[in-house]
């Protein structure tokens, strides 16, 4: 697969200014995004289940350049959403799609190996991963150490692509499983839910990594969480300020979140940041039959309206 990807990338170099792909990080367990501008840099390329990052995040800031980007199924939804919102010029982007069987959550691997330094990691044919540490070797299964999003993945093959590396895969996961955890959470009582969120958000250190990693958070340096005028949230580290920050993030992504899970991957405190956005997505699906990042012709539901809303009933007191 790596070899075929190399060939495809070599073939697009003449058309683009930069290729976004993956290279080896500071150790065997980490892969990091790389920007290749010269054909000889192709030797840096790495492709394995550790390539979890959503590289499409860089596309809006590279809007004026010609860019080739390596995408998995879930990442391709981000591109579609960018197209819906007019954040990229599709003709400036060469999408190299790779059907994906699931990626690895680095945190889950570290948890399995008791945070021992990783000496080496190799990947088998059928999703088995052998991890070598100073304390010996351990074999893990991809299905045990993948992020939660992979367990219910509906789009293993990219939705849009210009070149496809490998054969398309169809999902064997039931569509009902996608929001099963959200529906289960709704069975709790109001008090339990409030307590849950207070506990989770209390751990937040306001590093804003979730926002910075989010491909759909396009305000970035103009984020209202940091402006002083209007002063939405103060610098105090109280629960209500943290709660408010997460509400800003969730509500600005209402009906736009493509559920790539980058926010949760980036969170150093393990807060389920994506859950609120997925709840809103579930509502948008029920109310307007809309799913973000599926069809470039769609319009995000909160950017538009119908004069007669069949699904919104007037509320009585």
């Amino acid at each position, binding site marked *: 697969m790596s070899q075929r990807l190399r060939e495809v990338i070599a073939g697009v170099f003449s058309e683009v200014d930069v290729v976004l792909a993956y290279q080896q990080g500071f150790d065997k367990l980490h892969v990091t995004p790389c920007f290749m501008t010269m054909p000889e840099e192709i030797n840096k390329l790495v492709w394995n289940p550790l390539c979890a990052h959503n590289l499409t995040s860089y596309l809006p800031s590279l809007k004026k350049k010609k860019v080739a980007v390596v995408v998995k199924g879930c990442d391709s939804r981000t591109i579609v959403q960018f197209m819906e919102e007019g954040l990229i010029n599709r003709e400036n982007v060469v999408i190299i799609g790779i059907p994906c069987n699931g990626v690895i959550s680095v945190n889950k691997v570290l948890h399995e190996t008791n945070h021992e330094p990783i000496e080496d990691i190799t990947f088998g044919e059928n999703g088995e991963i052998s991890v070598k540490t100073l304390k010996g070797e351990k074999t893990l299964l991809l299905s045990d150490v993948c992020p939660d999003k992979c367990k219910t993945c509906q789009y293993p093959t990219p939705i849009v692509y210009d070149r496809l590396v490998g054969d398309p895969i169809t999902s064997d996961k039931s569509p009902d499983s996608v929001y099963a955890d959200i529906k289960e*959470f*709704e069975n709790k009582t*109001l*008090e*339990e*839910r*409030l*307590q*849950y*969120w207070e506990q989770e958000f209390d751990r937040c250190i306001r590093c804003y990594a979730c926002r910075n990693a989010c491909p759909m958070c396009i305000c970035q340096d103009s984020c209202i969480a940091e402006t002083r005028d209007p002063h*939405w949230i103060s610098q105090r580290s109280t629960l*209500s300020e943290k*709660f*408010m920050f997460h*509400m*800003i993030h*969730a*509500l600005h992504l*209402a*009906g736009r979140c493509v559920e790539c899970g980058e926010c949760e991957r980036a969170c150093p405190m393990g807060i389920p940041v994506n859950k*609120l956005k997925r*709840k*809103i997505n579930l*509502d*948008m699906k029920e*109310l307007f039959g809309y799913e973000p990042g599926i069809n470039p012709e769609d319009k995000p*539901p*909160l950017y538009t*309206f*119908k*004069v007669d*809303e069949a699904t*919104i009933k*007037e*509320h009585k*007191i």
Partner: protein
Amino acid sequence: MSDIAARELRIVGFLCNWCSYGGADTAGVSRFKQPTDLRIIRVPCSGRVDPLFIVKALLNGADGVLVSGCHPRDCHYTDGNFYARRRLEMLKRLLPFLGIDERRFHYTWISASEGARWQQTVTDFTKRVHELGPLHARKEATP
């Protein structure tokens, strides 16, 4: 003044300048008796109401939030309340997920001539929030 006998709670009302604010004024001019828990914030249009306004109010001490705009198709700016309707409905469904009772938040449409309807809405909503009690009781008990 209040016809509901209890400690006054904090209810924030975001009212559209062109309809509901006029409706509240009509109710006042007509000397309709109303509960006094509501603090009114006048906005140019219900479309101006960012769902974050409501969240911010609820997180910072309000016990209930009422949003009222022009009836659909009657918006002064043609379509502001259509956008508002989608956003507010989204928020109404999100609040219980956070553990906040969705009955603490209400949005409705009231025109400038509907003074009596305004009085009814405020009275009913205040009554409902009083039944639910203060939102931040737990925190106030342990400062």
